[in-house]
């Protein structure tokens, strides 16, 4: 009886907290509110006080960003101004958290703008996971991807012109065969390719060429000059992509821009941007390269992103989490022997295939990267 009357009721009523946000965003918002209070192109002098527990470096940073944002909004800031032109900004706090208070005009009846500020929860800076590197094969031909089959006793290696099969003999990979790939079109200058296996067999995807064949026994591929779609992460069907013809880029339905790689809903775009389907940029992803790979978090349910970055002596890979459009480091970076050629989610959810071109030898080194929890 009672229940029926509540069919259209709203959800649980809770007070809406201020959204956690970064300090620069808070400064920009406060500047916007302040400028809406004052005449356009007004000249003010800025007085700043910190009544809260905000550490001095953050307080200074906030002040500096606020000044920039105020200037950007058209206000002129001088060092001295008459009393009525003083803008008094206070970092205060109340029972709910920090409160930025700006007051302009006479002390008795100022124009006031306030911004409650919920700081982002402190990120645990200690690395939570470590990256383990297991070398697989080294070859002089470019390696685009490798796939382990038969419980790791057989390995397929994709290069721009062929797929080679290896068998593990006493801990070493012995070449057992190779199948050439029948290209109708020239390969892109930066060739990329993907090997995947599923219940139907194994598949090869290169720009302008799709091949399929049995995963067991001799390698026999049937190829066609099409760009079929395939899941970027075999354990996550949410992003199904295909190669853009003659490019080293992928395209996917529901995502309008071509991209290099994708993981956990984030896409690595030309120009170094990392963004989601809605166009929102991933914060703190500056310096990331073009290759991302999703990898299962070994410590808790969920996924992490392995991303390549440029280091002092070559590329690095590092694990990140993403919460509220914010990337957070979860591992120390691991230095690699050269630039990353390929970084793909492996057939095992907790592993990633990495191919690096050794800067000293010029060889292509394929490895498996796995994550482990730090105790």
């Amino acid at each position, binding site marked *: 009886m*009672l229940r029926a009357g509540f069919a259209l009721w*709203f959800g649980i009523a809770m007070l809406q907290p201020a959204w956690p946000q970064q300090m620069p965003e808070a400064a920009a918002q406060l500047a916007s509110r302040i400028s809406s209070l004052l005449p356009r192109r007004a000249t003010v002098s800025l007085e700043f006080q910190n009544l809260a527990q905000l550490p001095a470096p953050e307080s200074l940073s906030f002040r500096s960003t606020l000044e920039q944002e105020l200037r950007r909004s058209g206000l002129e800031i001088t060092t001295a101004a008459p009393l009525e032109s003083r803008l008094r900004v206070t970092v205060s706090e*109340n029972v709910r958290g920090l*409160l930025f208070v700006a007051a302009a005009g006479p002390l008795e009846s100022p124009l006031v703008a306030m911004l409650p500020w919920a700081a982002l929860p402190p990120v645990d800076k200690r690395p939570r996971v470590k990256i383990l590197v297991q070398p697989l094969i080294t070859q002089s031909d470019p390696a685009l991807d490798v796939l382990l089959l038969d419980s790791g006793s057989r390995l397929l290696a994709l290069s721009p012109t062929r797929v080679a099969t290896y068998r593990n003999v006493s801990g070493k990979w012995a070449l057992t065969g190779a199948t050439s790939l029948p290209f109708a079109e020239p390969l892109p200058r930066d060739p990329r390719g993907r090997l995947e296996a599923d219940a139907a067999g194994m598949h090869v995807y290169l720009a302008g060429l799709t091949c399929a064949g049995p995963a067991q026994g001799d390698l026999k591929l049937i190829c066609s000059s099409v760009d079929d779609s395939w899941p970027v992460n075999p354990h996550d069907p949410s992003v199904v992509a295909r190669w853009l013809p003659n490019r080293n880029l992928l395209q996917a339905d529901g995502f309008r821009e071509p991209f290099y790689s994708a993981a956990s809903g984030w896409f690595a775009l030309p120009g170094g941007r990392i963004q989601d389907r809605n166009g929102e940029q991933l914060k703190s992803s500056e310096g990331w390269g073009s290759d991302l790979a999703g990898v299962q978090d070994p410590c808790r349910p969920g996924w992490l992103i392995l991303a390549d970055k440029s280091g002092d002596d070559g590329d690095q890979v590092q694990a990140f989490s993403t919460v509220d459009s914010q990337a957070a480091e979860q591992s120390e970076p691991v230095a690699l022997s050269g630039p990353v050629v390929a970084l793909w989610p492996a057939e095992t959810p907790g592993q990633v295939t990495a191919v690096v071109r050794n800067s000293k030898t010029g060889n292509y080194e394929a490895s498996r990267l796995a994550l482990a929890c730090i105790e």
Partner: protein
Amino acid sequence: MRHRAWRWLVSSSCFLAILIGATRPRYGGSLTVELSTAWSTLNPSEHLGDAIAESKREVILPLIVETLVRLDSKGEVAPGLASAWQHDADHKRWRFSLRPKVLFHDGEPLTAASAEPSLAASLKHYFGEVTVSAGGQTIVIHCDRPMPDLLQQLARTRFSVFRSSEREPLIGTGPFRVTAWDPQRRLNLSAFDQYWNSRPFIDSVIINLGASRAVGDIFDIPFAQTRRVLPEHTRIWASASRELIAIEAVRVPPETFDALDLVIDRGPMVNVLGQRRAEAAFGLLPQWLSGYAFLFNRSPDVASARQIATRATAPLLSLSYPANDGFARSIAERVALNARDAGIIVQPTDRTTGSMRLIRWSLESRDAAMELQNIAGVLGLASETSSLDSSRPEELYQAERRMLESHRIIPVLYLPDLYGIAPRVHNWSQAQQNGSFSLHLDNLWVEP
């Protein structure tokens, strides 16, 4: 036993607090609490008429009774006896799901039917046309007008869920049950073994009311008794500013009011009368609660006050303070002294009538909007504070400014609650880190 003035102990209290190590709590023992005020009824919805007694009863009752929801340390609504709630689009109909497996102190399970009578009575008393219906573990409150702040209201002790009988004056669901009640004198409590949120460490509590001595394990320290002597090693604990002392104008010409507002010098009141534990009040809400109280701060301006006062007709003003309240009398006398500097004659009086009243207002919660609304209600300015929300401080500030400009109230001081804590009481500071101002005796433990 040696006794020293508590002023000395204030400075040593931090040191003593540090000496207490982190030890696992012990169960058992009895605790004695001495409170300087007294009251005659335990009924949470019954108003006492004495602000100080009311505020002290507010800190005790939550040991016995609980509310559907509570306010956490940030003043945000959290589940209490209700584990979930919903409302309709215009906030007139609210549905609460009661927490399962909760027992009253007499062993009766908490159901909607058993909770409904006390809730309905208090809601009707304070809000008029409110109906409460019960079914199973679901309570529906239907108001005749939108009640967007109903949750904050329901967190107030006056809306506690309780029952009573001829033999038992107050049967609640809280961590302690009443074992003896001697109105105005003594309240005995014992731990409720079946308390849903785990049994208290302490077995029993004896609360002596109207006590004037600094004895017992825990005792309040009224600001009127700043020269009180305390047992050695007693720790002094001060809450956040909780009580507002203000002048309410009843019949004061606006110019005289403005002049008086400018001439009051709060500094000596803070330092001398408040023993530096008090805080000058220029706004209605303290800084820790609003975050913007500093915007109202200003220095006394005797010259301007005198100038304004000369333009006004200067009648003899009377400032009434509660009888037998020595601290309020001292404040009133100080105000009268300051007023004289501006040429305004103020006569302090303990009679109930006067052109001005010194009021003492205790915060109940950490919800700024609700507290502002409560003060506005007392001043007859409720229309200034309708639809306030604590998450929108600009609106709170504007409402508070309008109240201050209404020529109805002059804030003077904020006072904290002060308690003396005996050395054998453990876990005090941690226990008080909670949303309400109540004494969380259930989290304390004592040395044998």
